[in-house]
């Protein structure tokens, strides 16, 4: 843990500061900037996964409502039956910046990851799972009734 990196951070209260010194959290510098700032799905996937091939797989399940009533709070669950899943990434193809989140799993995590996301109108929501070192994807088409500028 790099305690020195915390000294430069602004924190709201003394109690938050006290807590912060105990949190073994990574400094924001390692955040996947290029991938999150990418403006197309292809570009975001390349930034995240390089040129590795991503196979379509029904063993990746993207569960999202076909018709979402709130574009700013669309519930999405990405789960997989693949052995040894290592990571799960969630994209919304038509968003100004398609990458929504990327999770690193340990073998202790079972089933999937559920979140709520913002979507730009009608779009494919794409889930990519890395399992045993290979990449697999699947998608669900979502129509949101009101647009969100994500």
């Amino acid at each position, binding site marked *: 843990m790099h305690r020195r990196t915390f000294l430069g951070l602004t924190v709201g209260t003394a109690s938050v500061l006290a807590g912060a010194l105990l*949190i073994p959290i990574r400094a924001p510098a390692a955040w996947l900037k290029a991938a999150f700032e990418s403006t197309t799905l292809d570009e975001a996937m390349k930034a995240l996964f390089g040129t590795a091939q991503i196979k379509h797989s029904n063993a990746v399940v993207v569960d999202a409502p076909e018709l979402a009533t709130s574009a700013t709070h669309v519930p999405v669950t990405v789960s997989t039956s693949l052995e040894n899943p290592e990571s799960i990434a969630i994209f919304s193809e038509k968003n100004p910046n398609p990458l929504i*989140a990327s*999770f*690193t*799993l340990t073998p202790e995590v*079972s*089933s999937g*990851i559920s*979140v709520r*996301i913002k979507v730009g109108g009608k779009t494919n929501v794409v889930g990519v799972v890395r399992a045993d070192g290979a990449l697999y994807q699947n998608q669900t088409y979502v129509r949101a009734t009101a647009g969100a500028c994500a």
Partner: protein
Amino acid sequence: MKRESKIRARIKGGETVVRVLIRHPMETGARKDDVTGKRVPRHFVQHIEAERNGRVVLSGDWGWGMSSDPNLGFSLEGGKPGDVIRVTWVDNKGDKGELEAVAR
């Protein structure tokens, strides 16, 4: 005063089911303030980690496409009542949060 974030951990069917809700504006940087007409700067939770009994079990990098007051749901293999589930997050301004639940 912001409403409180929440965390819950329940043992169910041989798994520990965890639900987390973080109170955070998750500003995309594109929204304009209704009153001033000025763009609200991007402000979002950037990294999140979940621990069980002190060991990291899940981590995530987030962008501004996550909803405001974002939630996170996941399950862990096994677990027993009394396990401590801790979630920590940091946003792009360096603000941090910490949530803890005892599984039951």
